[in-house]
């Protein structure tokens, strides 16, 4: 399994980014996180599981409750941060390529 790739996929989802934002300020239980979303509780649990699996979130037992908090070390890894930057350039260059292909066809006419 490619862990780095999974972290990219994890932050590509807007709900998961919102979860990261929520727990960035304080550790929260799954229930408290879920109460911030209209989404069904099992869907939020699935997101939490994905974020935990790729190390963006850490779980910590506090009494009977399990708290989720941000794994700052992982978040700091520049690779995760630069993926949206790469995608931005990739889209821009895809556009360049398609526009220049059209241009090429027009020149041949």
């Amino acid at each position: 399994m490619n862990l780095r790739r999974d972290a990219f996929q994890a932050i590509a989802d807007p709900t998961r980014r919102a979860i990261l934002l929520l727990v960035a300020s304080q550790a929260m239980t799954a229930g408290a996180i879920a109460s911030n979303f209209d989404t069904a509780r099992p869907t939020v649990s699935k997101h939490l599981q994905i974020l935990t699996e790729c190390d963006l979130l850490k779980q910590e037992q506090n009494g009977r409750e399990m708290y989720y908090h941000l794994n700052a070390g992982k978040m700091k890894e520049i690779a995760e941060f630069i993926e949206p930057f790469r995608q931005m350039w990739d889209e821009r260059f895809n556009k360049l390529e398609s526009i220049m292909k059209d241009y090429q066809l027009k020149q041949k006419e």
Partner: protein
Amino acid sequence: MEQKTKIHAEEGRQELLITRQFDLPIDLLFKAYTEAELVEQWMGTKVLKLESNKHGAYQFETSDPKGNKHGFNGVIHEFELNRKITRTFEMENTPFAVQLEYLDFEALSDSTSKLTMHVVYKSAAIRDQILQLPFAQGINMAHNRLESILSKKS
């Protein structure tokens, strides 16, 4: 599948490399950077000025969905047809310092080419901030969405 666009950014450095292979002959790739009409199309910007020569300057203006205008400008230091462009790049009205861009164009075959952008920033911290802009925008979008969901609830 191998990614067509690659970013190489080493930790703690004030520079980065963006590389991309194109299914385009070298002259067409280069042209995409030198003709105002083409730049406007692929960059999605208005070109106010584009002097594609040594000591030339350029000025772009984009409008965001809210109608705010954002200016970009720079000067061209080196210009070699189908080979290289060295230029500065400045985002107007932002705290970001001017950056230096070395664009190298390379023919791989008659119909394919490669662009290497070597971008040098004033500091490693500024580079990291700029690298994180699209990520931060994603977070902000998620945040705004979250806020609208929460405001609907109350």
